[in-house]
């Protein structure tokens, strides 16, 4: 009993130490300029502009590719899949994919996206690498959310003559949307903090320019040039600063880490809150 509380305390204390250390070092650097400056050789004027813009764009690619694929695969496995060896293989495979170290996804992306498909060391390659990484998270969340819907709902829809897809799209997906959303947020929170696969792709750490804007003033108003632009992301920027010997850069690393932790904590917190509300509001 006491040892249980002690063990829990160790986890809590570590977290507090981690957070306090980062706040003490990093908070003074968190000025407006820090968010609006490019990285620089002088630590005092270096900022995370290119890093957070890069992270945002990479996350866009990740979300747009992982969400449809993951939800579709989850729906298939839960509602359509017959019980046969192929389904069994797919299921074992999803579990295995979740256990593959993230750096292996980086190697896959390096060999396939960067060289084989010729995407280069671009936002597109990084976004797709992270999408593959979080695909199992989205699939598992979708399956669990759909599985928790009672069979009566499906039977009701079929009794009224609905087809399978009508049942899925009009009933199962809307009712499970909160659960799926929770999974997506957790997946994206994980992707935001992933460093290893993006290093493997070869993301540059010193980027003093922004990728081309996705929105243009002239027709057709949207441009996809940014997909092939070189980039850096928050965790890479932080890694770069941590590995420098000068203390001033390590303060920058603390500040970048603080931004990163607040971002992931906020996303995970939102997911936990959604799940909590969902559990309270369930009507069946």
């Amino acid at each position, binding site marked *: 009993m006491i*040892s*249980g*509380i002690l*063990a*829990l305390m*160790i*986890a*809590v204390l570590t977290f507090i130490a*981690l957070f306090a*250390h*980062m706040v003490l070092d990093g908070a003074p650097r968190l000025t407006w300029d820090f968010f609006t400056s490019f990285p620089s050789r002088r630590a005092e004027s270096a900022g995370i502009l290119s890093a957070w813009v890069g992270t945002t764009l990479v996350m866009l690619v990740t979300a747009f590719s992982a969400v*449809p*694929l*993951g939800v*579709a*695969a989850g729906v*298939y496995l839960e509602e359509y*899949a017959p019980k046969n060896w192929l389904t069994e*293989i797919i299921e*074992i*495979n999803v579990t*295995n*994919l979740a*256990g*593959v*170290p*993230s*750096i*292996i996804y*980086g*190697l*896959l992306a*390096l*060999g396939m996206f960067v060289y084989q498909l010729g995407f280069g060391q671009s936002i597109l390659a990084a976004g797709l690498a992270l999408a593959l990484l979080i*695909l199992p998270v989205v699939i598992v969340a979708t399956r669990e959310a759909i599985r928790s819907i009672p069979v009566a709902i499906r039977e009701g829809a079929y009794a009224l003559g609905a*087809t*399978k897809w009508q049942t899925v799209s009009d009933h199962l997906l809307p009712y499970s949307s909160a659960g799926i959303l929770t999974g997506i947020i*957790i997946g994206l*929170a*994980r992707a*935001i*903090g*992933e*460093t*290893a696969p993006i*290093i*493997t792709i*070869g993301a540059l750490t010193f980027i003093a320019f922004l990728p081309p804007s996705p929105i243009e003033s002239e027709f057709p108003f949207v441009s996809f040039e940014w997909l092939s632009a070189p980039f850096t992301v928050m*965790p890479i920027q932080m*890694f770069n600063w*941590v590995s420098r010997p000068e203390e001033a850069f390590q303060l920058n690393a*603390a500040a970048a*880490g603080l931004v*990163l*932790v607040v971002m*992931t*904590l906020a*996303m*995970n917190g939102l997911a*936990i809150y959604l799940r909590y509300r969902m559990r309270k509001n369930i009507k069946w």
Partner: protein
Amino acid sequence: MVTEESRKRTAYAGKLGFSMRRRVREKCIEAMLFASAVLSVAIMLAIVVMLVRESIVFFQHVSIWDFLTDTEWTPLFDNAHYGILPLISGTVVSSLIALVVALPLGTIIAIYLSEFAPFAVREIAKPFLELLGGIPTVVYGYFALLFITPLLQSVLPELPGFSLLSAGLVMGIMIIPYVSSMTEDAMRAVPMNLREGSYAMGATRLQTALRVVMPAAFSGIAAAYILGISRAVGETMVVAIAAGMQPNLTWNPMEPAATITAYIVQVSLGDLPHGSIGYQTIFAAGLTLLLLTLVFNIIGHILRKRYREIY
């Protein structure tokens, strides 16, 4: 002139077309969903093909025997050696330290949360642990290098700035949430009547937890441990930042050393030309890592499957 008969016939044909279109659409959608599900198998195949293909080229230059027995890993030097052992030793030592921290603490937390904790404590502690598990690994790396290492140096003055010890310790703390949440799930799945039976025989809560619940949840707990191991083996950023990136055949946790993952990071940070032997080494290293984790994952999967069938 439209007769009653022909009007009926067109209505019927319309209905038939509708149900045909409906069936075709259903089939198309099902095919698309199926394709998405099969994609996960394709990803796994792509990973294996990519790693094996580059590794084959690598093993045409370097014999497998050298790869497994040479005690030096210096692929980027003029006098190149390609022995994976130094990277394996770094991986094993850092993972062992992590497990020494994570398995006992994770198990104790799980026992406490599942068997002892009041409802309110559990409701707060579980999301908290989940948040802890969501912190980016690069942040843990920063913590290991700039907080834990100086802290350890005040106790062990001879500890160098990079060491397997501090990387392993932080990695252990990092995987506590994975171990504790899976272990707790396994213990909570044990039916209540086993506990009640034990209490009825006059056992205390602790006796019940250790001698009834834990054995009953054994395979689930073992699966949790194995996933923790596979996590520690594949962890990258903490070791890359805090353990140094110099391959070093050592079993001493007080020394700096590189793991398989740290080596891949180190090479990727440089600018190696595509197709060079240096480029192929990271795929050979990656293949070794994948095989290691795959073995653990399969054991974990088998154990979990067995435990699902018990109740």
